C-alpha cells in the first residue's frame, strides 16, 4: 500500500504539486491522468524518491520513504523517456541492472521472447529505434518480480502487436496481486487496463474513482468525452 500525504512540490516559481493526498491499495491498476504539465511524472518520481517534495510525506507499507533507498527494490519503474547509455549493448545493460539488484531473481528470457528482442541483444543501445528502446525499457521493468510496478507512458512508440503484448503483460502482472500505477495519454488504453483513475489538474487531485463514476460525474456517455469535458473546463 502506498500512502501519499499532502505532497507539495515547487520547481522555481512553478508549483507543480499543491497538496496531493492519495492512497493506493494493493492488487489494482491505477491510472494517473491529467493534461501536460499537471504533475503526473513529478508525482511518480516523488514515490521513487527521484524528486524530493517540498512538503508532505509518502509511506510505503506504513514506512516513510524519506532518507530511505532500500524500498526501491520493491518497485519496478518504467521511465517516460528511455535514455540509456549509448555505448552499451542490450545484453550488457540487462546484466548490469541485474547486478545492481543482486538480491532478486530476474527472469528476462520470456520477455525477450515476448517482444522478439533476440536480434537486438548484441546491438548497441544508441543504434536502436525508439520503439525497440521502449521494448528494452519494458523488459528491464518487468524482469524483476516486484510488488509495485510504475509505468510512465508505457505505450509510447510501440507497434500494435507490442501494445497488445503489453496489455497482456499488465493483466498477468495484476493477476499476481501487484499494485500497478500507469500514466498515459492514450485514453482507450487507460480505459482497457485501469481499474481506477486519478485525474490531476493544476497540481491537485480533481477526480478520484472508477471510470464509471467519472462518466456519471461528467454526464458523458463514453470515457474519452468524459476526460475531454474536464480538459475543456481547464482550458477555459
Amino acid at each position: 500500500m502506498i500512502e501519499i500525504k499532502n505532497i507539495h512540490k515547487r520547481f522555481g516559481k512553478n508549483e507543480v504539486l499543491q497538496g496531493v493526498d492519495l492512497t493506493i491499495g494493493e492488487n489494482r491498476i491505477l491510472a494517473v491522468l491529467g493534461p501536460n504539465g499537471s504533475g503526473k511524472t513529478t508525482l511518480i518520481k516523488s514515490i521513487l524518491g527521484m524528486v524530493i517534495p517540498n512538503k508532505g510525506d509518502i509511506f510505503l507499507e506504513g514506512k516513510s520513504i524519506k532518507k530511505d533507498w532500500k524500498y526501491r527494490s520493491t518497485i519496478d519503474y518504467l521511465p517516460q523517456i528511455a535514455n540509456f547509455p549509448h555505448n552499451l549493448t542490450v545484453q550488457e545493460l540487462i546484466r548490469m541492472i541485474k547486478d545492481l539488484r543482486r538480491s532478486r531473481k530476474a527472469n528476462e528470457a520470456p520477455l525477450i521472447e515476448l517482444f522478439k528482442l533476440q536480434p537486438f541483444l548484441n546491438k548497441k543501445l544508441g543504434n536502436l529505434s525508439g520503439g525497440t528502446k521502449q521494448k528494452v525499457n519494458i523488459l528491464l521493468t518487468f524482469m524483476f518480480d516486484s510488488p509495485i510496478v510504475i509505468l510512465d507512458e508505457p505505450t509510447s512508440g510501440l507497434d500494435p502487436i507490442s501494445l497488445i503484448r503489453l496489455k497482456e503483460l499488465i493483466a498477468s502482472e495484476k493477476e499476481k496481486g501487484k499494485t500497478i500505477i500507469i500514466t498515459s495519454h492514450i485514453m482507450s488504453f487507460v480505459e482497457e487496463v485501469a481499474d481506477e483513475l486519478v485525474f490531476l489538474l493544476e497540481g491537485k487531485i480533481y477526480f478520484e474513482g472508477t471510470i464509471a463514476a467519472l462518466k456519471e460525474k461528467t454526464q458523458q456517455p463514453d470515457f474519452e468525452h468524459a476526460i475531454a469535458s474536464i480538459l475543456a473546463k481547464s482550458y477555459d
Partner: protein
Amino acid sequence: MRSRWSYVYFVFYLLLGFVLLFLNNNVSKAVITLMNVIIILVPLIGTIFGVMYYYNSKEFTGLLLAQPVKRSSIFLGQYLGVALSLSMSLIIGLGIPFLFYGIFRSDAIWDFSLLLITGTFLTLIFTALSFNIALNNENRIKGFGYAILLWLFMAVIYDGFFLMSLMIFEDYPLDTFSLTATMFNPIDLSRVLILLKLDISALMGYTGALFQKFFGTTFGVILSLSVLILWVLIPAWLIKMKSSRKDF
C-alpha cells in the same frame, strides 16, 4: 568513454616522462620541468574530465536513481571513478619512465614522490570541484564554461591578483596575508610545497625565505597537507549534500 580517454592521458604522461628525461638527462631537472606541467595541466584535465563525465553519464545516472542504490554511493562512486582513474594514469604514466631511469637510486626520489602526491591531490580536488559545478548547472555549455573559468581563475588570475596586492601593499607586513592567500588556492599551495622541497626557494627572495621558514618546518608541511585534504573533503561533502537534495 572514460577508459579510452584515461589511456590517452596515460600515454601522454608516459611520453612526457620519457621525453623530459631524455632531454634533461637529469632526474632533478626533469622533476622541475614536470612540476610546471603538472601544476597547470592536472587541474585542467581534472576539471574537464569531471564535467564531461558527469554530463555524459547523465542518462545512466537517471537509470541508477530508480534502482535500490543509495544516492551518495552513485555520485561519490562516479566521482572516485573519474578521479582515481586519472590519478592512476598520472602515477603509472610518469612512474614507468622514471623507474626505467633509476629513480630509486637517485636522491630525487622524495621530490618525485611529492610531485606525484600533489598531482593526485590536484586531480581529486579539481574533479570534485567540477562535479559540483556540473551538479549545479543543468545546462552543459554553462557547466563547461564555469569549469574552465574556475581553472583559469585558480591557475592564472588568482596569481595575478596575489602579485598585484603584494605590489600595492608592499609597505605593510605581508607575511600572514601571503601565507593565507596561498592556502586558499590549491594550485599555489602545491607549487609552493614542491618548490620548497626542491630547495630552490632562495630564488624567491624575501617571501621565499619566509615561506621556507614556514613550509620547511614539519608543522608547515603537515598544515599544508591538511589544507589539501580539506580541499578534497569539502567539495566531496558538497557533492554528497547537493546530490541528496537534487531532483531528477
